[in-house]
């Protein structure tokens, strides 16, 4: 494969221009203060110090908690689905995976608005309950509505990588396990699960990253009191206009996530 070494060159240039430079610009803001002028720079730690106030720490804790719950639920519900899909004939598999992906092509805002109408106090579910003579249930603007929205939106990002690793698995390995006297549970734990770990880690990473920084869905389904780190950054840039503090928060988020990623990577290596 040595012949293809040079093929990374275009992307190295590209990444330097469109990933690294914007990040440097943001870091520049994070360590400086006063206004949107790059010319009047003065170095400061102030933006980071401000972050240590309990309100902001709570926001981070809540975001990570929500990210973990969402990721866990996506794994719990998504793994069986990916597993079942991987046992269908190849053609059916492709169709099913497409069926899982298509909803993502419909605008996320639209789908979230539809959930709002389904869950609202006078919404579709409560109208149905009313017809059945039951008492209405308050679902909107709760943890339930936010997590439901996140899981519905991000579960495909868990299913697809898991399915990818399950489908490339050699089926005869499972047969071999049975032949050697393994119970279905042992087969699953020692063969199937082990072989799907790269996909699982990939899925966990994607869902966790998407849900920890999301802000549109919690805002719509949870209301303004659902303050997450994504909302905090957004409001710094859009409504408060404190680009320096906003940049500092995003740098902190990036660092926390980098640490998380390296932990995941270590797990990945151990499995190998």
């Amino acid at each position: 494969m040595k012949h293809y070494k040079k093929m990374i060159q275009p992307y190295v240039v590209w990444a330097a221009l469109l990933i690294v430079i914007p990040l440097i610009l943001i870091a520049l803001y994070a360590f400086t203060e006063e206004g949107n002028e790059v010319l009047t720079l003065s170095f400061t730690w102030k933006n980071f110090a401000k972050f240590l106030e309990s309100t902001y720490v709570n926001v981070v804790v809540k975001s990570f908690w929500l990210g973990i719950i969402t990721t866990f639920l996506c794994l719990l519900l998504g793994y069986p689905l990916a597993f079942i899909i991987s046992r269908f004939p190849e053609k059916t598999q492709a169709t099913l995976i497409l069926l899982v992906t298509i909803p993502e092509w419909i605008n996320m805002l639209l789908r979230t608005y539809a959930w709002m109408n389904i869950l609202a106090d006078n919404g579709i579910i409560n109208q149905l309950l009313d017809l059945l003579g039951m008492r209405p249930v308050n679902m909107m603007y709760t943890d339930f509505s936010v997590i439901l929205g996140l899981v519905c939106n991000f579960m495909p990002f868990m299913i697809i990588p898991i399915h990818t690793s399950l489908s490339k698995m050699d089926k005869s390995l499972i047969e071999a396990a049975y032949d050697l006297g393994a119970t279905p549970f042992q087969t699953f734990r020692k063969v199937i699960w082990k072989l799907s770990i790269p996909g699982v880690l990939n899925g966990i990473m994607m869902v966790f990253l998407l849900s920890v920084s999301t802000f549109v869905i919690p805002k719509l389904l949870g209301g303004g009191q659902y303050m997450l780190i994504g909302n905090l950054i957004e409001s710094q840039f859009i409504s408060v206009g404190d680009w320096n503090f906003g940049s500092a928060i995003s740098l902190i988020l990036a660092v926390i996530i980098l640490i998380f990623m390296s932990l995941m990577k270590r797990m990945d290596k151990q499995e190998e």
Partner: protein
Amino acid sequence: MKKKSFFSRFYVVLCLAFFYLPILVTMIFSFNSSKSLTRMTGVSLRWYSELINNVEVARAVYVSLSIAILATVISTVLGTITAIGLSSHRKIVKDIVLNVNNIPILNPEIVTAIGLMLLFSSAGFRKGYLTMLLAHIAFCTPYVITSVYPKVRSLDPNLANAAMDLGATPFEALTKVIVPMIKEGVFAGALLAFTMSFDDFVISYFVTGNGVKNISIVVYNMTKRINPTINALSTIVIVVIIVVLVSVNVFLPKLEKRTDHIHPRVRRGVTIFLVAALCLGLIRCGSISSQNHVLKVYNAGEYIDLSLLDKFQEEYNCTVVYETFESNEMMYTKLASGESYDVLIPSDYMIERLIKEDYLQPLDWDLIPNASGLMEEVMDKSYDPGNKYSCPYFWGSVGILYDRNIVDQADLSEGWELLKDPKYKGDLYMYDSERDSFMIALKALGYSMNTVNEDEIREAYEWLVEQRDTMDPIYAGDDIMDNMISGNKAIAVVYSGDASYTISENPDMDYFTPNQGTNIWYDAMVMTRDCSETDLAHAFINFMIDPESAIANTEEIGYTSTVKSAYDAMLDGTYAEISSYLVDDSDPRNEIFGYQDPKIKQKYAELWTKVKAQ
């Protein structure tokens, strides 16, 4: 393997039902005869006929689709060759590239968006189709690499050498041996890239300009008032996707069989031709024809009768590039990032800020003869004394919208304290805006809404915290209107114009302005400093306050007109029964928002975050 159990099939169906439920709801309600998204009032094709006449949506579909296709193709190629090349590099190179590659994936979209916006602005790029495409490639490629790289890593490193030993050129070894072996990863990456690009909102919004919009941007601007035309659009999108999938699955295998005997070189030629044609078409469509005069107008979303724009373009033989923003602050961010416009329609306090920061140029009132028809009440306000820079567009108050069947009429005398009345605990919406919320608390306490006194601000903060703890309010955005139309809660803080619209849709609602005083606001048309088409800009301003246009505009939007004849016509006609249309600015306790010093602004913002996040 053994038979699929009933349970497995049932689980697949259940999961798919979960994914498709919101889409199904959207599709069903696209055939609704009324605007409601919770109650079917009848079946009609009304929203489809409105969609067909909507040029903006047609363009947005084209932009979304072409950007998604181009970004997918380019990022898939780029990502795949990078992943292959990467596998034979030293560990340190791999780690660096992969970590850098992870940045756009792990960064919140808003940060990527701001970073790219800063980059494009400082590099002097003209924002539009090209910047949007570059940004999409930038955030799609990492996803391709993440899904292709594990596949490459699982390949036998000697594979390519083996192929070359057998006489293949490196290129042949690549396309005939390696790529086919990793094709699932490439396919998954491409699918992911397409999904990400097609659905993207935040990044697109910040890096685009000059009137280039994708579907998400159009939807975001529409959702201020749920507009079922967008449901009609997504229904069509779904149907198209299904048709394409079915035809791919049914017809493509047949087609492949039939084209098998055609020489590969011919096939390759056809492919190249198709790609080239697509690219040419895109470039042609991406640039707006600019033979005649172009006026760039930047207004709040859903804040104009769009037919007026067509009328203006016809009358003046010009092109109006019309863009919308979600909030004054969002508009400011875009303006500050170097985007140029001719006419803006912001609110009073923002106009004051723009004047202070030298973004505007004075109006020549001789070129606006219709100004004589403007109401005296809206002129010469503190944000722009003598109306040197601004021509009033709409105006109104902030007040409380309530359900007459639930809220006791006698309780209205509590004014803003109604929002703390335990009778209505859990039954109210606050507006998720620090300025409006602090205005309420300050007014309830008898202070000025423009106060800079730390103690007063602190007291208002405590008022809001106490309200939060005792009342369980929902801090919502523009979705308040739809919630109130559906009667989900009994009380909401709203702008008078939104109240008029809500009451016209749900007659159970009524509006009042609390007796402790409230915010009276004005939105006005201003001309930017860089505006070069000043004659056309004046003509536009004059056109919008023409009595006939003003009537059409106010009737469509529901906000109170600043043109005397239109105001009177509405009070006698469409909005006669609706108290919120009438703006009562006589109370001396009412105030206009003033310019806030950045330090004070940050203080308010910080406290508001604390109220919400505690």
